[in-house]
């Protein structure tokens, strides 16, 4: 009696597995579903997820799968065809130029502190000093006598890459600086630690952290569009050669008025 029950269970499980593994292939063949896989920069990922949500609402026969991995991984995945579209939050390096890139929008990098921090502006020189480890105390910047808890991103991150290019000017980020592995986690640290400073994608700026003016220019959309705020990097979609039909449809959607409006609402700088 027990034996048959167990056998039945196993049979059911195998059957379920079978269904599961065929599920997509079978359904896809019948209903003509298209899948677009996208991977890469974790900075671009949340916005792409948002775009994908809207896109799939309008195009129910499409499935857009979005993964993180980081800019460099996005480039790699794109090069060996594991994904249809790669995402990058930095310019392509010389050895990556074989890929086709589309700028879907621009993103400012905001230097952020806790809302409780009275400072409103820093010079590029000061920011460089903080992350280089020369300036260690808020006292030196005109605030209280308290160590600065600076937070950076990890090696390989596109945001860090852009930050190094745009701010650090070949100086190294000091080893004593804390490291978090995403915009969100940097923001979390800044939001909870009154003495912290870090840098995140402008699109993620909200009431929980305060964006500092750099050299007196605030990180606002107008200032970026006018070119006054200079810490800006592009968000790129990468394809290996010409994108295929499905990928094309999605990229077109992103570049369309609708897609750009979505991005703009998220705090990014549209390219219209």
């Amino acid at each position, binding site marked *: 009696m027990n034996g048959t029950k167990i056998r039945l269970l196993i049979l059911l499980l195998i059957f379920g597995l079978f269904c599961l593994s065929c599920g997509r292939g079978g359904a896809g063949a019948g209903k003509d579903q298209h899948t677009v896989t996208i991977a890469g920069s*974790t900075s671009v990922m949340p916005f792409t997820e948002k775009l994908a949500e809207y896109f799939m609402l309008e195009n129910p026969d499409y499935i857009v799968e979005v993964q*993180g*991995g*980081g*800019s*460099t*991984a996005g*480039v*790699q995945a794109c090069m060996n065809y594991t994904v249809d579209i790669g995402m990058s939050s930095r310019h392509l390096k010389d050895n990556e130029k074989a890929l086709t890139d589309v700028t879907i929008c621009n993103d400012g990098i905001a230097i952020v502190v806790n809302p409780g921090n009275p400072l409103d502006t820093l010079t590029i020189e000061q920011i460089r000093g903080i992350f280089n480890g020369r300036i260690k105390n808020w006292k030196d910047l005109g605030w209280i006598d308290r*160590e600065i*808890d600076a937070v950076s991103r*990890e*090696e*390989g*991150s596109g945001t860090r890459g852009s930050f190094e290019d745009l701010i650090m000017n070949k100086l*190294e980020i*000091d*080893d*004593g*600086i*804390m*490291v*978090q*592995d995403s915009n969100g986690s940097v923001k*979390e*640290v800044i939001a*909870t*630690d009154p*003495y*912290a400073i870090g840098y995140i994608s402008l699109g993620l700026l909200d009431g929980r952290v305060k964006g500092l003016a750099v050299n007196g220019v605030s990180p606002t959309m107008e200032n970026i569009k006018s070119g006054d705020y200079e810490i800006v990097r592009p968000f790129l979609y990468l394809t290996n050669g010409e994108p295929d039909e499905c990928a094309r449809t999605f990229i077109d959607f992103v570049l369309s008025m609708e897609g750009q409006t979505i991005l703009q609402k998220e705090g990014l700088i549209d390219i219209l």
Partner: protein
Amino acid sequence: MAFNKEKFIKYILTVFALSSLFFLFLIFAFILIEGLPLFLKVGFKNIIFGFKWAPTKGSFGIFPMIVSSFLVTFGALIVGGPLGLSCAVYLAEYSGKRMKMLLKPALELLAGIPSVVYGFLGVIYIVPLVRNYLGGSGFSLISTSVILGVMILPTIISISFDAIMSVPRTYREGSLAMGATKWQTIYKVVIPSARSGIMAGFILGMGRAIGETMAVIMIAGNALKIPTSLLDPLRTLTGNIALELAYATGDHRLGLFSTGVVLLVIIMALNYIANFGIKKKRLK
């Protein structure tokens, strides 16, 4: 026919049994295949004793992380060791049967709580506490040690408990008969006889602490320098892998696998020392 069937079954089961070995081999092989070339390319010394980790610029030193890993591990032992041992003593010597029935599953539950939950609670409660009362950012050696100390409690308790329980009743009776108090008996007779088992528990606890990842990257701050005070942030070997693996390509990824090789070697060494302790105890 029956004869053949039995042979067939035995053959299948042998293959199953060998699968564990096969997986172990695969894991070692792939971690080594990915991790060793960099050792040869950059030099063993430059990785193990290098101070600079800048994998995109060709520096792969993980010495600070090795030191940091051991620091949090010892920190965790300082927090969790005495607490765990006392719990084990309480369970084995003081608690009644019903209490034991209640406490043992509770402690197992402590082991079952996912490490991300520990990390999360650490960030929300321990980190601000340290920041406000001790200074620094709170993402620090001490916060990490406290959280890891709690996380290794179940390991230390259950293995120490087994070790204490395996001390023969006659030892205790002998000591008590000679007029020793219960505490004197525990302190002078029970704990010394259970020593190697308790040590094994501590070492396995160390293994758990050194291998812990998610909680650590959430609380440790992940700075690359060797911490110089309890309040400094630090990055462990596991943290290094988890932080950067998703992003890494080329030599950078190989560097993370080298980190994995070092971690694997340390863990294996700890496990064998611990197992040796447990086996020695059993032989006695």
